[in-house]
């Protein structure tokens, strides 16, 4: 199963008002290619993607918030799984694209003994599971997008053969942040607290 193919299936399930957060890995340019507009926050790495998405669920409780994380990033701070379980947000759909590798730098722990879905279940996220085919991914994503969460879906994917092009001003750093804030400020649920 390829990550890009999964994201192509996921994007049409995400409406214009749902929020998405990605990790730094190839998730960022791939997601930009399939959902360039809307409230997307790209490229949070080393454990920050999932908890940032969790924070967004508190600001937009009526909308789905999609976390598109990667195995290496999540494992950098897996205690966020415990925080997610404790906050228990019904509107969080968390994906982890697990290619079992640190880019071209060798295998991660999920290539050996570590099972992220079991870790999530152990943390207390009841709706956790692993998918290995596009059919399984599509069914799990659809079910998660249409029901109360939190959902935690580990998608076992192949190491990415290459990267796709993406506008860096839209997918990284302060310029990306400003695009995101513009989308947030135009969001119908956004409330100015002054």
């Amino acid at each position, binding site marked *: 199963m390829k990550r890009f193919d999964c994201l192509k299936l996921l994007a049409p399930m995400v409406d214009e008002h749902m929020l998405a957060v990605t990790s730094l890995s190839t998730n960022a340019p791939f997601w930009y290619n399939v959902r360039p507009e809307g409230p997307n926050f790209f490229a949070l790495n*080393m454990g920050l993607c999932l908890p940032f998405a969790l*924070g*967004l669920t*508190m600001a937009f409780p009526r909308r789905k918030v999609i976390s598109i994380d990667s195995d290496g990033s999540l494992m950098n*701070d897996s205690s*966020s799984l415990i925080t997610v379980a*404790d906050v228990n947000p019904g509107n969080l759909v968390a994906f982890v694209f697990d290619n079992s590798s640190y880019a071209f730098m060798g295998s991660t722990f999920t290539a050996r003994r570590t099972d992220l879905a079991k870790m999530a279940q152990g943390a207390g996220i009841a709706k956790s599971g692993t998918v290995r085919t596009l059919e399984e991914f599509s069914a799990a994503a659809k079910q998660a997008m249409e029901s109360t969460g939190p959902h935690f879906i580990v998608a076992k994917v192949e190491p990415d053969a290459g990267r796709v092009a993406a506008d860096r001003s839209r997918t990284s750093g302060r310029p990306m942040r400003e695009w995101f804030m513009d989308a947030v400020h135009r969001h119908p649920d956004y409330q100015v607290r002054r």
Partner: protein
Amino acid sequence: MDQQSVQVIVETLKEQGIDLVVTLPEEPTYALTEAVRQDSFFTAVTVAGEGNGIAFCAGAALGGRRVAFVTGVAGLLVSSWALSQMGMVYGAPILILASYRGDFGDHSGIPGSQLLMFKQVAEPLLGALRVPYRVVNQKATLKRMLQEGSFACQDYSHPIALLLSGEVLW
């Protein structure tokens, strides 16, 4: 922290519209976080790690919530990666209330070598992370410091830290 300080902080957070308070419990600020937990005005969230606590606060803050993160110097050390990202890179307005462990007056019983480390590290760490901060150790100035810190946090769109010490904390 005594009830007088707790009351001033709770009242001022309310005045500032800060209704989401995030913490990983630590002893010096426990009275504050417990008071927040008992008050229905607030959403109180306990996180399992300070790094994900800062990222959580950032997501909520950039989404429009007003947030405070209650921690200590050890928590600032643990969350330094997250602070570097959510502060310098992404400018998330997070009001940080941190017990200033190791400051003069900390008689909490932690070994002196630890207290000295906290004292030596806390302010240089915030400086290195470019987090504007003030030491708040007078009850008479607590409310004003909170008001100004909250305003600066929103105006800068950046984390701000108030290091609680002296008669405010001990």
